[in-house]
């Protein structure tokens, strides 16, 4: 059994809560006491039917105002897979929440109302999924029951979507499924109402879509997280480098370079509490020992000697701004990347993206909350990085305000 992490995009009107509720309910992941609590809350609020949104909207303010504030994580499992849903609200002001949910997702479900077709919101969600390099997108054309399960309506929407998606860079795998979340058509079981649809049900697709290619298994990257020195009699001279493999495969005997110092050595052993490993790959957490004693500390990176990442102080990146306080032009922020923290100064805003039209807006000097733009940054020490396109772990960073300590931005290195 493995894990599929997916995010759902769409507003309440698109039936997103209903869809999640149905996936959880039909996979028996909603418990009787949760159902009873929801029924009681719905009754008290005067809702006509049980409001499945109450399952994910757990905070007091959300329940009072009937809105989703933040990313909620939900879990369910079938005999084939464990699923983690990052449920994010779809309104325009919540771009930052969708970016957050998408950052750890393998797949995005984008809900389209069959009566409305591909609208601005669909494009916005697709752009974010593409920007965050989610490999698989499911276009769930919902409310098919309200258009008489009409094949022509569905086909037109799929054509519109594909025409639009051809303008995006990265979306690799797009699967369209006609559903009715309310009636359960094509959600868990194939629907009898749409005999013209030959594809899988949504759950079958989620259970079987290939996610093995999520991690980069080519470029060996090991950001050092913590140095382990037991200083005990048994492990007197042990000096191990603990971390989580961010890419590629390491084996004992491999020639490696330690960055930024540039010293070269060999991998001696790969330790875990269960014993030695013959190889390690992303996203395993292990402890490495090296053949020679080199001064290595947190923030350094061990890489294969023949395949180094970039080491530069000048970075170009797509950045989404998270803070209510707009980015300061030429502002200085703390930048956290892999296990390294340094200072960064914003040198230039190359352009901002209008996420409704996907047009580039030039001549902008700052980004406000939920804006996405391309920035040029300079860091105080070199970043040991790959492009985000090549490696999501070594290509991503966050920006932190040095005064408030808030996370104010998220960046993807170009």
């Amino acid at each position, binding site marked *: 059994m*493995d894990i599929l992490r997916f995010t759902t995009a769409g507003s309440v009107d698109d039936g997103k809560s209903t869809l999640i509720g149905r996936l959880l309910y039909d996979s028996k992941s909603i418990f009787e006491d949760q159902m009873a609590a929801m029924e009681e809350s719905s009754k008290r609020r005067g809702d006509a039917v049980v409001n499945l949104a109450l399952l994910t909207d757990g*905070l007091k303010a959300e329940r009072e105002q009937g809105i989703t504030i933040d990313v909620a994580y939900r879990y369910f499992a079938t005999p084939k897979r464990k699923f983690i849903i990052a449920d994010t609200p779809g309104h325009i002001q919540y771009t930052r929440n969708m970016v957050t949910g998408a950052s750890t997702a393998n797949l995005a479900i984008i809900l389209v109302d069959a009566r409305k077709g591909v609208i601005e919101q669909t494009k916005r969600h697709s752009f974010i999924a593409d920007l965050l390099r989610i490999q698989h997108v499911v276009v769930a054309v919902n409310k098919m029951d309200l258009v008489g399960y009409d094949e022509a309506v569905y086909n037109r929407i799929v054509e519109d979507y594909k025409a639009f998606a051809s303008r995006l860079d990265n979306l690799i795998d797009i699967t369209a499924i006609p559903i009715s979340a309310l009636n359960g058509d094509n959600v868990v079981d194939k629907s009898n109402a749409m005999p013209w649809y030959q594809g899988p049900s949504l759950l079958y697709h989620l259970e079987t879509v290939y996610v093995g290619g999520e991690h980069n298994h080519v470029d060996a990257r090991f950001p050092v997280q913590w140095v382990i020195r037991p200083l005990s009699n048994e492990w007197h001279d042990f000096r191990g480098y603990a*971390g989580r493999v961010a890419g590629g495969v390491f084996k004992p005997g491999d020639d490696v370079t330690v960055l930024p110092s540039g010293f070269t050595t060999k991998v001696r052993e790969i330790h875990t509490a269960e014993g030695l490993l013959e190889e390690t790959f992303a996203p395993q957490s292990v402890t490495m020992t090296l053949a020679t004693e080199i001064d290595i500390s947190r923030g350094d990176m061990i890489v294969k000697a023949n395949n180094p990442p970039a080491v530069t102080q000048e970075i170009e990146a797509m950045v989404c701004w998270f803070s209510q306080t707009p980015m300061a032009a030429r502002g200085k922020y703390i930048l956290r990347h892999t296990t390294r923290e340094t200072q960064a100064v914003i040198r230039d805003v190359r352009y901002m993206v209008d996420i409704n039209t996907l047009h580039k807006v030039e001549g902008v000097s700052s980004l406000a909350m939920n804006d996405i733009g391309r920035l040029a940054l300079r860091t105080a020490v070199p970043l040991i990085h790959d492009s985000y396109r090549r490696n999501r772990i070594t290509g991503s960073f966050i920006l932190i305000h040095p005064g408030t300590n808030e996370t104010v931005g998220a960046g993807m290195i170009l």
Partner: protein
Amino acid sequence: MPDYNLSHLDQLEAEAIYVLRETAAQFRKPALLFSGGKDSILMAHLARKAFWPAKVPFPLVHIDTGHNFPETITYRDEYVANLGAELVVGLVQDSIDSGRVVEEKGINASRNKLQTVTLLDTIEANQYDACLGGGRRDEEKARAKERFFSHRDEFGQWDPKNQRPELWNLFNGRKHEGEHFRVFPLSNFTEMDVWLYIQREGIPLPSLYFSHEREVFLRGGSLLAVTDFVTVQPGEAVEKKVVRFRTIGDATCTGAVESAAGTLDAIIDEVAAARQTERGTRSDDKRSETAMEDRKREGYF
């Protein structure tokens, strides 16, 4: 190319170890909150793995209501001795004696809520700047919005509407003097994952989790055990039943379930078929619709 895929338990383990090491690296003085329940046992097990062959570089902290099942304390002391870690105990009784908190009155009196004050006092007295907790997002709706690295202000309060966004595996543990963090390495484990992992790793658990005969009585929909800490009211019938506990907390608010599951295999079958959440046995969650959020805002676990 070989198939470099990890099973779901291996992925969860690698993630939790990463979070534990990040905590050691980003904070000056972290501590691991250890209740003797299965989640904190699992977390301590992962902490041993994360820093092996060195020792776990932080103490285990138990906030003790004094209303424990004796099995929990026996287990705690043996477990900590095996781990070779330091144990710090914060006593709710001390907070009561010093007048920091007042014992609740009435038949449903519980020290569950009082623990928050003892916890925050223990954090302050020892100057811990990060406390690792075994909370999981699948446990409760307020926890579903919790971060791995969760900020607490100088009063120990959680502000759920104003949380730091958490992207990729980049955790922001920066804080001002006097503030601290709660860190939840098991965020993505579900109850089932916890049991499957405990089975796979062969982690010994307190006997309370396995079925046994015990005197219990029904109150507010929960089967409470007869202990020195609760007074059975007239009209409440005490019966001997074969029960076990799905969660272990303060004896005054942790309900038992009728169960014949005496092995991990049987428990896993039971969890798979369960139609009630595990916290359905916790009367502390039933005090209001947002009881967990309210307590967490004040600084609860």
